[in-house]
C-alpha cells in the first residue's frame, strides 16, 4: 500500500509540473504576441543639478553639411568623465529635439564616456543610436565629428577617441563611418575646421 503522504506529495509535484508547463506556454505566447517597444527612451542617468557652466558644443547641420560651434549653459559635475558625459548628453538633447538640425533616431543615447590615461577617450553609444542612424558618408561623418570634437575641445589631453556601440566594437556607424579604429583627435580637429565651412 502506498503511504498517504507519498500520494499527496506525488500529486502536488505533478500539479506543479503541469502548472509550470502551462505557465511557460502562456509566457511564451505573451512574449511573442506583445509588440516590443522599438526603443527605450528613458534617460539612463538622472539629470545633473548644480552650478552651470558655459561650454562649446559642436553641432551638425544637415542643411549645409556643416559643424557649428554653439555655446550652451549646462550643469556640469566636477568629475572629468562625468563632465564629458554631460557634454554629449547636452549635444544629444539638441539632436533629439523636434527642431533638430541633424536628426538622430528615437532613443539614441550615450551610455557612458570613459577617459583612460594617457589621452584615450571611449564613447559608448547605445544600439538605438547606431541602428536608427541614417546612412550616408557625410551624414555619419557629421555625427562622429560632432561627438568627438565636442569631447576633445572641452577635455584637454585627449589625443585619441574610440567609439563603441553597446560596449562592443562595430565596423561602421550606419554603413559608412568607420568605428573599427581609434580616431586621431588632431586629424579630427582638421576635419572639424573643414566642416565648419559648410557647403
Amino acid at each position: 500500500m502506498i503511504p498517504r503522504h507519498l500520494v499527496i506529495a506525488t500529486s502536488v509535484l505533478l500539479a506543479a509540473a503541469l502548472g509550470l508547463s502551462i505557465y511557460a506556454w502562456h509566457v511564451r505566447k505573451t512574449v511573442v504576441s506583445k509588440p516590443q517597444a522599438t526603443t527605450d527612451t528613458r534617460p539612463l542617468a538622472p539629470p545633473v543639478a548644480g552650478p552651470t557652466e558655459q561650454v562649446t558644443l559642436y553641432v551638425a547641420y544637415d542643411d549645409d553639411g556643416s559643424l557649428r560651434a554653439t555655446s550652451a549653459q549646462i550643469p556640469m559635475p566636477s568629475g572629468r568623465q562625468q563632465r564629458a558625459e554631460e557634454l554629449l548628453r547636452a549635444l544629444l538633447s539638441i539632436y533629439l529635439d523636434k527642431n533638430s538640425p541633424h536628426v538622430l533616431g528615437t532613443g539614441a543615447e550615450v551610455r557612458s564616456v570613459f577617459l583612460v590615461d594617457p589621452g584615450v577617450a571611449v564613447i559608448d553609444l547605445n544600439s538605438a543610436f547606431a541602428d536608427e542612424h541614417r546612412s550616408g558618408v557625410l551624414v555619419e561623418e557629421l555625427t562622429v565629428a560632432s561627438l568627438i570634437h565636442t569631447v576633445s575641445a572641452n577635455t584637454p589631453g585627449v589625443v585619441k577617441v574610440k567609439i563603441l556601440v553597446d560596449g562592443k566594437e562595430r565596423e561602421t556607424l550606419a554603413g559608412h563611418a568607420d568605428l573599427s579604429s581609434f580616431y586621431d583627435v588632431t586629424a579630427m580637429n582638421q576635419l572639424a575646421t573643414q566642416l565648419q565651412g559648410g557647403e
Partner: protein
Amino acid sequence: MRWTEPRLIAGPAVMLACAIFSTIFLSGAPAEKHLAVYSVAANYSVAIVQHDGRDYVGLLEVLEPLGTVSARIESGGRWRLRYNNIEGNFQAGKSRARVLGRDADLGEKFLLHNDRGLVPVAALGSLLPRFLGGPVTLHEASARLFIGSVGTHFTASLAAQNPPRLVFNFSAPVNPTIATETGSLRMTFTREPLVAPASPMLTFGNKTISSANYSENNGAAIITVNTSVAVLASFSNNGKTITIAPVAVVSAANEPNTPPASVASNTATTAPPATPAPAPAPPVPAARRYFAVVDASHGGDDHGETLSATLLEKDVTVALARSLRQELESRGITTLVLRDSDANVSLDQRAIFANADHAAIYIALHAASSGHGVRVYSALLPYGEDDRGPFLSWTTAQRTSRPLSQTAASAVAGELQKRQIPVRALAAPLRPLNNVIGPAIAVEIAPQGSDVSQLIAPDYQQLITSAVATAIAATRDQLGAAP
C-alpha cells in the same frame, strides 16, 4: 501494481524536466520563411505563415502578380476569390474548396486570418493549375514554386589546365549573391528559377576545385563550390557565364568587362590580418594591370542607404561604376570595376584587390539622398599604428599616398565645379580608403535637388562620371608615377 519510492520521484522529475525543456525549446524565435514564385510574368516571394506546424500562404498574394484578382469575405466564414474569370469558394476550417464548380482537396483546413485567406503551401501544386489553367511545379521542402515552363538550367565544366577554371554556363543571365569562406565559394540564387542538374553533386577529380553541389533552401537555390585555395568568381557572356578560378588566375586574366564578382578570403601578402597588425608593403612596385580600380560600394547583403522605397545605394553605385569605366576607358585609361554584380565583398577584400593590382588610383563610389551635388573624399587616417620595418600598418597603409589622393580629389572637385555641379572635397573616416596603399578617393553623389530619382538618370550619372574621368586623365602623369 505497486509503486516504489524511486518511481514516485522519477515521475515528477521527468515532468519537471519536460516543462523546463519545453520552456527552453519554445523560446527560440522561428526563422522567417518565404515562398519563392517564378513565372513568365514575374519572379517574387510571398511570406509563409505557420499554423499548427503547417506552412500556409495567402492565396490572394500568390495570384496577385499573375492577373486580376479580388476576394471578399462572406457570412459564416466563407471566402470567395475571383482570379480573372475563375471563381473559388473557401470555407474557414474546411479542407475542401470549390473551384470552377468542382471540389478541390486542400489536404489541411483553410484559414481566415486578419481577412486573409490562407491555404496550405502543400496544396498549391494541385490548387493553382485550376486557376491558372497550366502546370505548376512545387518544391515544397525548399518553398519554391515554378509556374509554367520557367527554369534556368546550367552546366558546369572544369577546364583542364593548371591552375584549373570551373565554368558555369546558364541558360539565362543570372545575378547570384556570392559569399566566400575558407575552402568554399557559395552562390545563392534568390531571383532566378534555377533548377537542379541531373545530379546535385558534381565531382571534378581535381585537387584545387574538387566538387560543387546544388541545394535548395527557403526559397533559394545554392551552388557551393568546394576548393582547396582561395578563388574568385567572374561574370561574362552578359551574365550567362560564371568562371571560378584561383585568385592569381583571375587577377591576371580578367578583362575589363569581366571583373571579379567577389574576392575570396586570402592570406596573401596584401591581405589584412585578423587583428590590426601590419601588412607587408611591396618592396618593388609590381606591374600594373589596370590604371584605375573603380569600386561600386556595398553589394549583396549590404544595401547601403535605402534611397527610396525602390532604390538602394548598392544598385546606384553599380550603375555609376559602369558609367565611370566607360568614361575612363574612352580616355585610354584601363579600368577594372571591382564589383559588377550584386556580390558580397568585404571592405578588406576591396583593399586587398586594389593593393594586389597596384592601381594608380582607387575610386570608391557612393550615393546619398542627403545634401546636394557631389562630395569627394580622401582618407581621414585613424590614430597611427607604427609601421614595422618594411611592413605597413593595415589601418594607415594610405599614409604615404595621401598627398596624391588629395591631389586627385582636388582635381575631381575642380572639374565638377567647372561643370556647375555643387561639390565639396573633404577627408572622411571611410574604409577601405585608409587600407589602400596607392592613391585612393571616394565620390559620394547626391541629387542636385530633393529628387533622388536623379541618381539613376543616365544624363546626371554621365555628367558626373565624365567630370571624374576628365580629372583623372588630367592627373594621369602624377598618379602614374606613384609607386
